[in-house]
């Protein structure tokens, strides 16, 4: 990649104005000194240590970090599926515990209920909160139309492709009208083309729905393409490395991927996540240079 001469801190006036606008909005989510440790047969493991950050209303925040930085644990705590050891989170200024309607979640794996049709999957949340069948159904149709799947309302999840299933999962989470949409590597299992389409699609949805997105990913390009701000976590234990503003202007397009701001941001993220490849033993993947190499094929049968 060509070295970018720009800094990720250089923001065009429009981008500066946009961030000023974001900062002027209420803080919808405040995470205060969050820590989490697990007890395992190997002993106590500290997954998160003193994580604090704020998210403004209708902001798109991505959380990135090397494997083991606890980003999925953080998402699970935010969703209320895990309980933090210390610290608290405030939603609209109120402390929250346990799962709730105010936080929707989209998982990486296919979390759709296989025994329900697409429509009934989307109706699940509203039905659980006591909405009538008719109302829930008409609402479900609207959400399905939003993700472009109204034609598949009566199909079963196993009849859909991977990308379509994740669109249903998004519609299902949004049908509950959450304040925050948590997404834990939702496009990780998709092929590259589908993933790119889903990213654009997600931005379209986010633009049209009053929702704040907290998006977990390990794909830096994805994070830069989607996010207003990127929270970088460092591993062992998971701590906040930095919280950077993405200088790429909106609306975003795939053409920006080779742009100056994009490359500068990516360089910054790469340096931030992987400062000269730390030799921490906890990262048990050997680096490419040090892989033991044994020739398993004929000496003359060379490919390079």
């Amino acid at each position, binding site marked *: 990649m060509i070295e970018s001469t720009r800094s990720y801190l250089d923001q065009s006036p429009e981008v500066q104005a946009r961030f000023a606008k974001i900062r002027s909005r209420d803080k919808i989510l405040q995470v205060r000194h969050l820590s989490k440790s697990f007890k395992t047969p190997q002993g106590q493991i500290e997954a998160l240590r003193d994580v604090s950050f704020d998210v403004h209303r209708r902001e798109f925040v991505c959380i990135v970090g090397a494997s083991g930085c606890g980003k999925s644990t953080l998402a699970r705590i935010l*969703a*209320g*599926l895990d309980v933090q050891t210390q610290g608290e989170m405030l939603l609209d200024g109120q402390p929250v515990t346990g*799962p*709730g*309607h105010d*936080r*929707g*979640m989209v*998982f990486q*794996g*296919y*979390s*759709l*209920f*296989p*025994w*329900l049709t697409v429509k009934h999957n989307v109706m*699940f*949340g509203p039905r*659980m*909160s006591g909405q009538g069948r008719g109302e829930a159904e008409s609402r479900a149709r609207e959400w399905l139309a939003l993700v*472009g799947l109204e*034609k*598949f309302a009566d*199909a*079963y*999840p*196993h*009849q*859909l*492709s*991977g*990308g*379509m299933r994740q669109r249903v*999962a998004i519609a*299902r*989470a949004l049908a*509950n009208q959450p304040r925050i949409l*948590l997404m834990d590597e939702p496009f990780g299992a*998709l*092929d590259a*083309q*589908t993933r790119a*389409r889903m990213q654009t699609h997600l931005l379209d949805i986010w633009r049209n729905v009053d929702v704040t997105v907290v998006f977990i990913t390990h794909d830096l390009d994805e994070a830069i393409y989607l996010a207003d701000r990127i929270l970088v976590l460092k591993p062992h234990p998971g701590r906040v490395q930095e919280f950077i503003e993405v200088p790429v202007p909106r609306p975003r397009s795939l053409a920006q991927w080779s742009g100056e701001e994009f490359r500068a941001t990516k360089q910054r993220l790469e340096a931030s996540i992987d400062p000269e490849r730390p030799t921490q033993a906890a990262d048990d993947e050997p680096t490419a240079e040090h892989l033991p190499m044994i020739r398993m094929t004929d000496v003359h049968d060379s490919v390079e």
Partner: protein
Amino acid sequence: MEQASVEPGPAVAVRAKAWRWPRPSRASLMTLGSFLLPLLVWCAVSYVPFIWHPKVAVEAPGGVDYFQPGMLVDRDEYAQQVEAMRAQHLAPPQGHPANPIYLPAPHEVARALFTAFTTAPEQRDAPWLHESLWHSIQVIFWGFVISSLIGVPLGIAAGHFTTVGRLTEPFNEFFRYLPAPAFGALAVAVLGIYDGPKIAIIVIGTFFQQVLIVANTTRKLEATLVEASRTLGAKGWSLIAHVVVPGILPDLYRDQRVLLGWAWTYLIVAELIGTSSGITFFITQQARYQHFENVYAAIIIIGVIGFGSDLLLGRLGRWLFPWDRSRDGR
């Protein structure tokens, strides 16, 4: 895994495919073969005179005093008598190789399969074969229903709630090793000599396995589904009713099919307890009169009913659970 496609085509195609009648394939030929092979062995043993046939059926006694036409004697004894008659210059006996009476030939059993339903029982007040069968089916049915009514909910609770699981499973593990027939005498003392103790044996034999198997199936439900439903607001009873139960239903159905087969295996022992009844009564009665072809016929009928009902339930399962991707070939 799947192709990304926005066209409605694939979904429709998948649905149409699921309903197409299966054409005879290699697999179904193998299924047929798996039944034909044992039948072939049986035919060979029955119809090829030099395979086994340890007896000789006497056709004419010749000079042997105690031989009767139709009598089965050991091959060695027959040979001795032939030698003896030769030595005494008497007429040697005539006979052909035969199998023992307890191994009838396939055609005899086939005939018995038909006549068992059309001939009256030898004892005047004894039940007909179809009556015996119906009685057996009722015993199985009630045993299985009673076991399931308690076992399935308890299994789901044990699988879903760690506390219930820890509280019930060690005892279940212990109890399932106790052979159900061991409770026969006790069951008779408590429940009398008629159908009560028989049903009880089937319940005891099925229930403890059932709780453990259902609990295991419940635990295998994908955690993501439960978590997704919790983020959507499901909790407590509605979580069980709307997520856990429908989520495990296809597997639970499969478990129940296996357990029903299990219940059948307890039937014969159960029916020997107290007053012998049902198909077991028929079998013991026929064996007493040495009508072994009827015994085989009855055993085959049990197999056909068991296997047939399982096939039917399998088909029904496919129809009931169109979303189930892990369904087996049957």
